[in-house]
């Protein structure tokens, strides 16, 4: 977009040697960095640029809209925008999954505005965040002004004043909101929106890749409710969805709206060449395997890029890190107070006006370096950039590409650098560039029929409109659920109808981001604050919020001072402790029912329903970097019980006897293999590490194994203190289970990819740089164990070799 020579390139010339000399683009910088820091760059590849493919403005577009586009300099469309126009004109539901900055918003703006001009048809836009919604309205207003189209677009969110709401409901042609508002404010008051719904023609849902897992499962149910309310008003709106690049856009979009969707995935927008570097900080202490911090590296790369005259964006994982990196860069570039600042921070927590100002300055090219959290990840328009630096892996391949997509100009190469932190996932990725390069983007998954989520939304739906006996909600008969709600007293059955009868507003009790409402809130009491900084699912509370726990919130360590179990609150303060804590949990699993099974090497793999009983018996304090165990603490909390789904692997006793000298070795191997499989599985299903748990035990629930103080497996038969010798056959089982009651659909995709997972876990262990084992592969290993005859690493490999596909 911005093909002019960079005016700031001049002032970057300083006496810093060759590295600071201005460069034409990201390609030159990439080459320069590769020469200078070859030992830190573990992977380097180039995505070729591509010419744009264009199509004329459609002939069937209203003349005033054509005029408006022309006056904004748009004389033709990209090929994918024209495809989207044709597909929507043909009445199809559409999902557009093209890279960042490929002009996705025109794909839905054009049909929506055309319909508003021609038939005064209405449209509902849903964005995951308020900031995005405001951007979109600003863009719509500009286009509207340019062509004097008379189309009224408004945001409707928690900040919308009460007196404006009535006008928006009656006069808004385009209402821009978010799933939470739809869930809590619009649908439960749909009669106030009657006029809007009666004329609703399009529902636009942007950034659908963010609607996955628990959140996505809730959103799918909110959309079921939306479609149910639409049916009441006699309309069947057309859906236009947009997504960043994910592995399954059509399938995911179709799962969200439960209708067939046409996918448009081939972008016609021109892109410049894109260089990607994977960067591992240098080893600073070879004895301990300590590496320099990612922060120091990100700072160095950003400094070099800005000096070379390239517009640079650094993504940091936490707000604190944003502030630290901003300070480092400001110290270098903003030391003259008379000049306008060249470095800006951008994160959540700033006032909307501050953020708008930052965005304007960035678009106008007044800023040379931006440091941001993921707040900038989603579609906020900040103009063209040359270099993106990721301070740590964002958690998925898709998110990494989306952030890299922030850099890119039409005629100039751009550069993306991923700087690995010491986190096992980061280390895994940066050491396996081929995984990253060749990996298809992750699949987004949802489980809209998760029983607790479904019950919550049938409850909300019954509040909105009565149910008829036998009515479908989504794909299934709602009747048994309605009977449960009638037993609870919130519904009353009269003849064929179930009607809402309680004096409550159910949507207020349903958070779209958790399963059921037993969540704990984390309250920060540092320096007299009393603010909620996080929410933790009930099932994870005992593992992460026990008194004494070091609890990380956005990479910032807090220590739990007090846990109010009944009140569901954990009180924490900021801490500078040099250790982290790890719960010692006794987890006993029992297979209730196998849904499916198949051979896995010499053993077998299954997925199905399991019963989990878990007790947190205490916790370990582990020093950062050295992973020394420096102490213990007691935990006294209620046992957790969980019915959920799992994938598990088993080996017959005969195979074990051949591979291992004794049972202890086999169990050690299973625990170590579980660690590695858990790492790769978390990556594979785009899960948070704590949403997917691992365990080793007997398939019949007779015993389970946990690591003891030395990291060696200890066999237990009950959650209590006493251990006993087991009877019967010895069939160790390695479980990966979904940590939510009822499951949220993590185990089915894991089962589908079972062979990949074992193969990847095996490669992870074999190719790890450590000698005997480390947190990045089979779990922490004590120094004393490193020279043993059967290190964990080799035991894990033996297990994985036995279950890998032949």
């Amino acid at each position, binding site marked *: 977009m911005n093909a002019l020579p960079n005016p700031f390139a001049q002032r970057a010339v300083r006496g810093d040697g060759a590295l600071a000399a201005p460069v034409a683009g990201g390609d030159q910088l990439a080459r320069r960095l590769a020469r200078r820091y070859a030992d830190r760059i573990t992977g380097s590849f180039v995505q070729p640029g591509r010419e744009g493919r264009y199509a004329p403005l459609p002939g069937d577009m209203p003349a005033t809209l054509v005029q408006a586009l022309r006056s904004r300099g748009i004389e033709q469309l990209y090929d994918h925008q024209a495809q989207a126009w044709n597909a929507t004109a043909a009445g199809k539901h559409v999902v557009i999954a093209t890279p960042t900055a490929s002009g996705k918003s025109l794909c839905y703006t054009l049909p929506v505005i055309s319909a508003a001009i021609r038939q005064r048809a209405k449209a509902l836009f849903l964005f995951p965040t308020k900031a995005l919604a405001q951007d979109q309205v600003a863009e719509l207003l500009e286009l509207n002004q340019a062509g004097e189209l008379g189309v009224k677009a408004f945001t409707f969110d928690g900040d919308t004043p009460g007196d404006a709401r009535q006008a928006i409901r009656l006069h808004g042609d385009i209402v821009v909101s978010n799933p939470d508002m739809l869930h809590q404010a619009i649908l439960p008051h749909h*009669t106030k929106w009657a006029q809007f719904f009666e004329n609703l023609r399009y529902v636009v849902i942007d950034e659908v890749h963010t609607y996955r897992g628990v959140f996505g499962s809730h959103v799918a149910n909110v959309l079921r409710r939306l479609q149910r309310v639409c049916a009441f008003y006699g309309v069947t709106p057309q859906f236009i969805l947009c997504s960043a690049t994910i592995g399954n856009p059509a399938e995911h979009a179709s799962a969200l709206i439960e209708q067939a969707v046409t996918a448009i995935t081939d972008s016609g927008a021109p892109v410049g060449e894109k260089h990607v570097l994977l960067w591992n900080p240098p080893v600073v202490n070879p004895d301990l395997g300590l590496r320099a911090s990612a922060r120091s590296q990100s700072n160095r790369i950003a400094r070099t890029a800005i000096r070379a005259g390239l517009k640079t964006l650094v993504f940091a994982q936490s707000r604190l890190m944003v502030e630290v990196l901003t300070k480092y860069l400001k110290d270098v570039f903003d030391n003259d107070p008379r000049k306008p600042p060249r470095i800006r921070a951008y994160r959540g927590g700033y006032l909307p006006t501050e953020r708008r100002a930052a965005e304007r300055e960035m678009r106008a090219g007044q800023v040379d370096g931006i440091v941001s959290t993921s707040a900038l990840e989603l579609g906020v328009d900040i103009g063209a950039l040359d270099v993106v630096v990721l301070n740590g892996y964002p958690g998925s391949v898709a998110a990494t590409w989306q952030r890299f997509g922030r850099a890119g100009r039409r005629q100039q190469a751009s550069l993306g650098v991923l700087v690995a932190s010491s986190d096992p996932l980061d280390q895994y990725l940066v050491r396996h560039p081929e995984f990253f390069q060749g990996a298809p983007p992750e699949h987004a998954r949802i489980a809209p029929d998760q029983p607790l989520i479904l019950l919550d939304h049938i409850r909300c739906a*019954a509040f909105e409109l009565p149910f008829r006996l036998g009515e479908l909600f989504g794909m299934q008969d709602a009747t048994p659920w309605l*009977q449960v709600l009638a037993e609870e007293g919130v519904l*009353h059955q009269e003849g064929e109808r179930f009607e*809402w009868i*309680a*004096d*409550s507003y159910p949507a207020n009790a349903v958070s779209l981001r958790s399963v059921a409402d037993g969540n704990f809130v984390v309250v920060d009491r540092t320096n007299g604050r009393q603010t909620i900084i996080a929410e933790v699912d009930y099932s994870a509370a005992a593992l992460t919020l026990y008194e004494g726990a070091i609890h990380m919130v956005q990479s910032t360590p807090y220590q739990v001072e007090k846990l109010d179990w009944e009140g569901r609150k954990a009180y924490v303060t900021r801490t500078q402790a040099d250790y982290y804590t790890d719960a010692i949990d006794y987890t006993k699993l029992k297979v209730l029912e196998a849904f499916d099974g198949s051979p896995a090497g010499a053993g077998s793999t299954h997925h199905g329903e399991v019963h989990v009983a878990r007790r947190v018996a205490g916790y370990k304090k582990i020093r950062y970097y050295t992973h020394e165990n420096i102490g213990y603490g007691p935990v006294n909390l209620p046992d957790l*019980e969980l*019915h959920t789904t799992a994938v598990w692997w088993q080996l017959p006793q005969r195979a074990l006897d051949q591979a291992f000298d004794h049972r202890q070795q086999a169990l050690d191997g299973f625990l170590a293999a579980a660690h590695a499989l858990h790492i790769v599985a978390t990556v594979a299903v785009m899960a948070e590490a704590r949403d997917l748990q691992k365990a080793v035990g007997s398939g019949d629930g007779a015993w389970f194994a946990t690591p003891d103080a030395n990291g060696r497996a200890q066999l237990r038969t009950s959650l209590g203190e006493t251990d006993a010798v087991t009877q019967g056959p010895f069939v160790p089982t390695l479980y990966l289970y979904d940590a939510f009651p009822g499951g949220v659909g993590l185990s089915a995709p894991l089962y589908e990819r079972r062979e990949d997972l074992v193969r990847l876990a095996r490669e992870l262990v074999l190719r790890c740089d450590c000698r005997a084992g480390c947190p990045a592969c089979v779990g922490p290993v004590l120094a004393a164990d490193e020279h043993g005859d059967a290190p964990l690493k080799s035991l894990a490999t033996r297990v994985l070799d036995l279950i890998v596909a032949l």
Partner: protein
Amino acid sequence: MSALADKLRGLRRQAGVQAPAPATVRRPEPMPDNLRALLGVRRRTDRAPVRASEPTPLPGQTIAPGLQLSETRCAWPPSPGRFHAGFARIDADIEPERLLLFDTETTGLAGGTGTRAFMIGVADWHKGQFRERQLLISTLAGEAAMLDCFVSWLRPDTVLVSYNGKSYDAPLLKTRLRLHRRESPLDGLAHIDLLHPVRRRWRGVWENCRLATVERQLLRVVREDDLPGAEAPAAWLGFLRGGSAAALHRVARHNSQDLRSLGGILAHFTQACD
């Protein structure tokens, strides 16, 4: 009961949700204090109360399936006569025949599409008397007929009179009409919501401007055996779930007093204008 219910209960417990108490457990009907006193005497004699076992009939006459209508007339409050509605910021002279006072009893205060009116009380000055008509539904299916009946009492020149009805009762009835796919004539009608002139006049003078406060301070009305408004939903729900209709009579008396107070407050403002 069902396997699904059991499973869901289990999963919710695992998710840390405190189990909701089953609402179907019926509590014994609360009895008026005077009756309890009488029964207390009998109880001491160890004889079963004879009258308590007879089912209490619903208030009013059944005029459609699931719909009861009660009608009463009384002399107080007197008709205000023709008045200028400037106190309600309506610049018009109003004939008392056009006035329709209304007040609803609802299943709760949660708002949204899930709250309904189970009773609509309406009053006007008819042939020189204060006429009250109360519609009460005894089944959910009676709601449509209740709304139709209420709407049939409205004329294009009707002036509604309410207490907080602009923000509460009217939008709620509009929502119910919409859910029953009926046009709402309420929007087009003039509406005197007495809460607003009361607030303009007495805010900061009285501890609050609730109807009960206005009654006490302005009209010197003393409520007798009043069922607090907040207990009305439970009274109706109890009946709907197979309980006694006794408490519904108290709801009806409460609603009736609200209507008479509306008339009294209106009279106060119209006299002040003279």
